């Protein structure tokens, strides 16, 4: 078993290396500094580790939100929409919640965001369970509705009307609602959300491997009819999984609002939901793996942003790397060959 695990990890690393190599080639062809990605990644794990932590936080959480749903074969492509709703709820809680104590306000922000994310995820989940609506398309459509809803809030009812502010954004939330940033990583926006993300990963790993719910999720994902025959109510599991996924997505929204932007802004979300899909797929939908792949993509994203600021290399190149990684993962070009070789080696032995 350890050898198999080693091989699986080596396989994923091989994929990353080939994707980066391909993108490097691409940069070289278009006349940029070919080593830009490598340099960006190197800076991301040495001099600018704080930036990596800042980006890894939402990516790990996004990966977890996706992985719990994908594990049950529920394709929640609506993490982006759910996190928009979470962010809106977080900002609303911070601005309008009657209590003013630090603990009360912070927990109100986080809980409201998680509840809003989970509630928004219920729309596609219930449609799927009761009316058999394909969740892929419904979640994609709900993403657009949610981001337009945030746009509506920050241009209408929640718009910052104070003098001199001309932003499509809400007012700055009260300081007591700020989630703390990490003091030893100042002045970056790295924040306590990173620990929340790590804790969430640990909880989810326990849930997957030690609880009944985790087992049910796995069986429903593997074979829904078998699950139904075995007394697992697959529909209930689907709803539960979407609720968890939505709550985690809402948490991303809360962290983005309460720890980073400190206000609700139009278009604040650079697509963490879809990035989460890449994170989760690279980790083969394993919560602990998600931490590592989230950290890798955090370094990549941070490197891309630095790259664009310091040189003229477009940061869109990170999206290209990501898409190449998913294409190679989903295409399973490498794995079957390795398997075949392993089998034939055994045959010879």
């Amino acid at each position, binding site marked *: 078993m350890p050898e198999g695990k080693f091989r699986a990890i080596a396989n994923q690393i091989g994929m990353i290396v080939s994707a980066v190599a391909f993108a490097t080639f691409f940069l070289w062809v278009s006349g940029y500094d070919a080593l830009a990605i490598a340099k960006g990644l190197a800076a991301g794990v040495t001099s600018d580790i704080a930036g990596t932590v800042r980006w890894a936080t939402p990516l790990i959480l996004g990966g977890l939100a996706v992985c719990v749903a994908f594990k049950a074969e529920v*394709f929640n492509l609506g993490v982006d929409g759910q996190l928009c709703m979470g962010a809106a709820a977080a900002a609303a809680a911070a601005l309008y919640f009657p209590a003013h104590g630090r603990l009360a306000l912070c927990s109100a922000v986080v809980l409201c965001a998680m509840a809003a994310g989970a509630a928004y995820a219920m729309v596609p989940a219930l449609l799927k369970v009761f*009316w*058999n609506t394909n969740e*892929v*398309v419904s979640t994609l459509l709900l993403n657009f509705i949610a981001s337009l809803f945030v746009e509506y809030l920050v*241009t209408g009812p929640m718009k910052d009307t104070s003098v001199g502010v001309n932003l499509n954004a809400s007012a700055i939330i009260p300081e007591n609602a700020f989630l703390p940033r990490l003091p030893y990583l100042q002045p970056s926006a790295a924040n306590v959300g990173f620990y929340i993300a790590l804790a969430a990963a640990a909880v989810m790993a326990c849930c997957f491997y030690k609880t009944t719910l985790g087992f049910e999720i796995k069986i429903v994902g593997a074979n829904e009819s078998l699950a139904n025959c075995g007394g697992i109510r697959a529909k209930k599991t689907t709803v539960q999984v979407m609720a968890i996924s939505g709550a985690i997505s809402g948490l991303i929204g809360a962290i983005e609002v309460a720890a980073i932007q400190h206000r609700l802004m139009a278009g604040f979300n650079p697509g963490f939901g879809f990035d989460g899909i890449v994170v989760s797929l690279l980790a083969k939908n394993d919560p602990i793996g998600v931490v590592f792949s989230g950290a890798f993509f955090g370094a990549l994203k941070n490197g891309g942003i630095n790259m664009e600021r310091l040189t003229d290399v477009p940061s869109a190149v990170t999206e290209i790397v990501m898409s190449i990684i998913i294409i190679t993962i989903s*295409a*399973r070009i490498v794995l079957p060959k390795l398997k075949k070789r392993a089998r034939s080696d055994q045959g010879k032995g």
Partner: protein
Amino acid sequence: MDIFAGSGIWASMLRIATPVTLAAMGGLLCQRAGVFNIALEGCMLAGAFSGIAVVQYTGGSVTAGMFGAVAAGMLLGAIFALSVVQFRANQIIAGIAVNMLCLGLTSYLLRSLFKVQGVIRPKVIDKLAPVGIGPLADVPFLGEMLGGQSVVAYLAIFSVFLVWLLLNKTEAGLDICAVGESPDAARTAGISPGAIQWAVILACGGLCGLAGSYLSTAIVSQFSENMVQGRGFNAFTAVVFGNANPIATWLVTLLFGLADAIGIRIELKGTGFSPSVIKMFPFALALAALAVSSYVGKLRRASAQKAWKK
């Protein structure tokens, strides 16, 4: 959005629906052949970009731009087909990958080829001249709707009938449906499911490319990052709501177009509605359409089962 001012609402409906119709016809072919293709969105974006890019390089030729866009759409279709058909990738995940690739690649190329960020607007662009419709122009409703449309709008309508003919009157259409219904049975009958799926995915890519270039070269004369804005997903929803029937799907795309056109009217009149809320309208309509069609499908299946048991 002053481009829409002064023309009738039916004309703007047809104009807005045109790219969605083209993409939906591509998606419909894939759906019939059993390919769940959400890469429509990405292929449209690639088409929109290459349309404008070719226009820029050829000094304004929109026709060349459209051919370039079709080629780009087919290229992305080829990537999708390669991973889905050849390497048996999950269709949803491969679709997401293609969409992400197009988003990244178009912004990257925008920066590296044209040294601009966000938006490119070619200085010279010879827009396609509107097609003359002769005596039809005096017919009250049709004249208003069809007058001043570019040739692509007619191509879109033509594509609907072409797809209908293909699926209902030709052997190739039968093969496509057979592959979609049961690939194994099709293989037994001597049809190669892989070849059929390659063909429909490539055709779909080409149609989406054309749709994207219509969006960028004919409607707005510019390319901006992520300009497709969910039209590909709307096209996909139209296929589901139209039950993969060409005529029904076409009517659904017209309905979406009408919703959009009405939204633009309301926005122009300035009735106090927030523009963001109005922009939600087509998506909400699509979601409602999707939910209703799945509910009807469920009822139909249930009654079929009941009849079977008797």
